[in-house]
């Protein structure tokens, strides 16, 4: 069929052409393998970002979140502190009222739940003493009574429901500042003018009768002209007699002086202190539900799940543990309690990823949120019923945000989502274009090579080679080049994929879930009250046998087609015409 010696010598002794053509194909195949690898790597990374929340069974997340302010509502009777009656009212509104605005009730709930931020630092100790304290704020995830869990659990179609309290923590260390304010008001002189009414006749008579009834009055009157010479002060005696006989209204004046109310505004300078603040995120979960919650037992990558006494145990995310050099078994004192790190976990960015995971009651105690949670994670009986169950929960809890798992995917943003979108949208097209370009280059090189061999082909025809034999020989050559290109391409692709895995960038996946209304909260607290969960996932480009096979098939088929086209083009010439070719 084919002269293998001729084939081998053609490939070997026209090595320049062979290598250039093979490299053209190799480049195409390598890039295609690389692009497919990156695309699969991005898919895997996105799965990793969403997993295992989406795989361990969390189908629905129930929260109470704020929405943009558009007005106010007066009914705050069923605030977060109120307990469940019909299952609706602790979500900030009366039953049947959708949570469409951040009303005064929710304002109050937000302020109340974040009141720790207003803590007077002077309560931490006398001024000048060192303090270390962790503050816990729910941010925009407004807590609600834990009894909501029972309501959700009772919804038809719900298989299980797990509570969670997800907080923003501020770890503060420093010196208790001296907080004083000196208010100085200016000196005031108050003058009052009193008009004394004239004596009435009765008062005159009373004075005269009083004077004359006094036995000393005659002598006092006689000596009034030489008052200074009388021992004992005769004039004084007369004056004193007169004083005694004056009516009571002349002896004491009663007057009211009203000073206008004054508001004193004094700027109090912030206390000068050396407080350092570190933010981190925490979550309280139910250790008795190891397969459902913000973190699950399956996500423990080192150490173990909560033990039988979870109150003073905690789990730490691998990222936080890495950044803070936290190890399993380490003690972490928080507000006077020594917690033991029992395990490291790899949380998902979808939903809420926290740095530390506590036993729910422990965090409730730390955050002064006894009996409060701010998330309920739901697993449904049948995944096809998610939408129905969402509607049932929304009906029972009209103030709640009920988020189905499939929409959690949309909450993942960041470079991972962008890169995956790019890879999904353009990866296939790009791979196709590159492959097509590689084929065209390889085909042109092959055709160019064959066109230079027309006389050779004419000679073969002259010495008795049939047209088919000539075409087969050329196709075998170009297919051989294709195989070589495939081999080189796979090597190039493998190197690209390995290099991406070793030196490639990390993709950030950011979950904005449950941060709806963050701008409103920011407006309230003049700061971002809650960070979005962020996870850095290293980009990998896995190589699958199917990808390699695809590359080989493309390269070999490419070589085969190029050989067929070029060979047939040359062999269809009459031998005489081929021999007359000057090339």
């Amino acid at each position, binding site marked *: 069929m084919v002269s293998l010696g001729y084939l081998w010598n053609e490939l070997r002794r026209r090595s320049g052409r062979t290598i250039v053509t093979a490299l053209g194909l190799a480049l195409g195949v390598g890039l295609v393998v690389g692009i497919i690898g990156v695309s699969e790597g991005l898919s895997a990374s996105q799965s990793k970002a969403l997993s295992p929340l989406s795989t361990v069974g969390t189908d629905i997340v129930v929260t109470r979140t704020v929405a943009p302010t558009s007005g106010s509502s007066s009914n705050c009777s069923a605030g977060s502190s109120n307990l469940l009656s019909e299952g609706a009212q602790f979500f900030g509104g009366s039953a049947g009222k959708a949570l469409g605005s951040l009303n005064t009730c929710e304002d109050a709930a937000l302020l109340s739940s974040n009141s720790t931020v207003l803590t007077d630092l002077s309560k931490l100790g006398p001024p000048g003493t060192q303090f270390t304290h962790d503050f816990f704020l729910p941010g925009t995830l407004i807590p609600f009574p834990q009894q909501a869990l029972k309501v959700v659990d009772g919804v038809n179609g719900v298989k299980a429901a797990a509570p969670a309290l997800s907080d923003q923590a501020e770890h503060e260390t420093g010196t208790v500042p001296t907080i004083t304010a000196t208010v100085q008001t200016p000196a005031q002189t108050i003058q009052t003018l009193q008009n004394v009414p004239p004596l009435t006749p009765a008062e005159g008579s009373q004075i005269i009768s009083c004077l004359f009834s006094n036995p000393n009055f005659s002598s006092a009157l006689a000596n009034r002209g030489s008052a200074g010479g009388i021992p004992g002060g005769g004039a004084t005696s007369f004056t004193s007699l007169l004083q005694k006989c004056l009516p009571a209204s002349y002896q004491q004046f009663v007057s009211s002086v009203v000073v206008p109310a004054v508001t004193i505004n004094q700027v109090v300078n912030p206390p000068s202190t050396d407080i350092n603040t570190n933010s981190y995120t925490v979550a309280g979960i139910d250790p008795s539900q190891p397969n459902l919650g913000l973190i699950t037992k399956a996500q423990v990558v080192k150490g173990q799940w909560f033990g039988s006494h979870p109150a003073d145990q905690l789990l730490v995310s691998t990222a936080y543990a890495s950044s803070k050099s936290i190890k399993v078994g380490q003690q972490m004192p928080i507000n006077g309690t020594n917690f033991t790190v029992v395990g490291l976990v790899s949380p998902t960015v979808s939903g809420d990823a926290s740095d530390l995971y506590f036993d729910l009651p422990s965090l409730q105690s730390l955050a002064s949120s006894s009996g409060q949670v701010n998330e309920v994670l739901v697993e449904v009986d049948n995944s096809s019923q998610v939408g129905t169950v969402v509607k049932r929960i929304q009906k029972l809890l009209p103030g709640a945000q009920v988020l189905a798992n499939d929409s959690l995917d949309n909450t993942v943003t960041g470079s991972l989502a962008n890169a995956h979108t790019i890879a999904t949208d353009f990866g296939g097209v790009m791979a196709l274009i590159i492959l097509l370009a590689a084929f065209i280059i390889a085909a042109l090189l092959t055709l160019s090579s064959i066109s230079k061999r027309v006389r050779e082909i004419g000679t073969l025809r002259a010495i008795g080679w049939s047209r088919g*034999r000539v075409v087969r020989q050329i196709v075998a050559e170009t297919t051989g080049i294709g195989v070589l290109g495939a081999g080189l391409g796979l090597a190039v692709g493998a190197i690209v994929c390995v290099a991406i895995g070793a030196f490639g960038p990390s993709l950030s996946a950011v979950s904005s879930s449950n941060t709806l209304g963050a701008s409103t909260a920011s407006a309230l607290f003049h700061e971002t009250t809650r960070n979005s969960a962020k996870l850095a996932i290293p980009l990998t480009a896995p190589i699958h046998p199917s990808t390699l096979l695809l590359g080989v098939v493309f390269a070999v088929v490419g070589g085969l087609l190029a050989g067929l086209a070029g060979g047939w083009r040359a062999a269809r010439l009459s031998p005489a015409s081929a021999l007359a070719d000057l090339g």
Partner: protein
Amino acid sequence: MTGAMDTNGSADSAAALYELRNVERRYQRGGTTVLAVHDLNLEIDVGEFLSIQGPSGSGKTTLLQLLGALDAPTAGSITFDGSELARLGDHDLTDIRARHVGFVFQQFNLIPTLTAEENVAIAMVPLKVKSDARHGRARELLEQVGLGARTEHLPSRLSGGEQQRVAIARALANHPRVLLADEPTGNLDTQNAAEIMALLAGLQADTGVTVVVATHDPEVARQSHRRVVMRDGAILEDSAVAP
């Protein structure tokens, strides 16, 4: 075709190997018709040593290609060993070229990536000769043309005369009935040209193969036994060469 020839071979052994009747070949080139050969009437017998002499453009190469079934006449008929070539398909014509015709070109036309031995052996591929037999036969032929020591050399490492010897060996590979040589000495110096012509003459004498040599050189033509002179596509003279 082969069977027909085998059947008729012994009966027509005394008949002409080639019979050309009113052969004409026209080409369309750049919108004009070129009459390459016309009114050719020629018979070539088995074992003849014939030269076709003429200047460039006289039609001798066209005639050689028509004889070698590389081209077909636009008019007239060519009979090879009793079979009219015009009636044969591409498969049979290819078979004739493989089995019965050996070509030698002015430019040698060796495959540049193959050694001398491989260049000879490749001519036996269409006949499905086994590799060992091919190479054995190739070495034998190269020995016969005086290149026994250069079997592994690539054409680029051989002189013009050596390359033409390899081409002659290749042409003889399948024991052809006719050797068609188109200006076989055109690219050679006088000494090499003489050696090649001596080699062809010797082969013709030793094996009885019919040899047809196209040449512009009267000296080369003089070494043949019969000379056909061509001018402007027509036969001007057909005469025996005096020994």
